[in-house]
């Protein structure tokens, strides 16, 4: 897949899946460098938008899924170069809703070498029952080591157990070294 223009960027990778969305369904769409400050600003925007109109528990879960997904990008997104310009920690986030659910989609560059590992892990989480997810979370909390980036390896596990819905993920290969990782969490309303 190639970019048809500099301004379209990452959104191209997910555009096909979301052509059915209407403007009123979209709470937030953002593409750019996901720093800690940007993460706080985006989660704050959605929190403000949903406060008063959304059930407290639903709002908390959407907020939590956003924090964990965006911190993943902040910590793990590979740098990426386009026409000679480096884009460190670039990512995409789309929050959309319908009557039944919220969907939080994130996208970022990963090394193609890591695709299998990520797929295996997410596939495994999708096949675990709630008790096994709790056990895995507790085990990882006890035995896991904080990565140099400050992650505890707990984000995906917690998203799965808090939302109770299958994690949706796919990869678009850009070239031998780089792939685009698309990750969607679903939160029931």
């Amino acid at each position, binding site marked *: 897949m190639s970019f048809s223009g500099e301004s379209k960027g990452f959104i191209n990778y997910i555009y096909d899946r979301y052509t059915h969305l209407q403007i009123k369904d979209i709470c937030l769409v953002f593409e750019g460098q996901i720093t800690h400050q940007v993460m706080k600003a985006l989660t704050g925007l959605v929190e403000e938008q949903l406060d008063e109109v959304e059930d407290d528990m639903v709002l908390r879960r959407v907020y939590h899924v956003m*924090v*964990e997904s965006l911190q993943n990008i902040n910590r793990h997104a590979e740098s990426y170069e386009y026409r000679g310009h480096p884009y460190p920690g670039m990512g995409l986030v789309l929050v959309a809703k319908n009557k039944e659910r919220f969907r939080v989609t994130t996208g970022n560059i990963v090394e193609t070498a890591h695709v299998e590992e990520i797929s295996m892990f997410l596939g495994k989480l999708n096949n675990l029952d709630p008790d096994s997810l709790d056990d895995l979370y507790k085990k990882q909390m006890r035995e896991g080591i904080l990565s140099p980036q400050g992650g*505890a390896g707990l984000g995906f596990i917690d998203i799965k157990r808090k939302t109770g819905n299958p994690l949706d993920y796919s990869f678009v290969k850009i070239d031998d070294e780089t792939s685009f990782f698309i990750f969607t969490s679903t939160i029931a309303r």
Partner: protein
Amino acid sequence: MEALRIAQTDDSPEVILDQEGNHFEISGKSLPEDVMDFYQPVLDWLGEYRKNPNPKTVFTFNLLYFNTASSKLILDILIIFEEMVEEGQDILIRWLSLSSDEDMQEAGREYEEMIDVPFEHVSHEP
């Protein structure tokens, strides 16, 4: 020992560790950019406190939100208390949650299962 007080920010909780005032509390939101950076002084302080603690220590968690990286550091704090209990110290963890926040209540129950320290669960209105 000297009290440790950290003011609340938009991504980190307020911390009060005051032996003289017998007040031990972490409250607010916890999603700091660097969890180790934030929690290391807390762990260090408790490591010192443990050597000469008050006759009874009631430690209050009054969190509105914490991310998964913080959950690991909260466990590290609780492990210090577990070791203090093993050393014969009188410790009580007060876990406060909003009555509407099932996930926070569940998190408290989960820590209680993992750690051998007396817990008191309190749910309250905003």
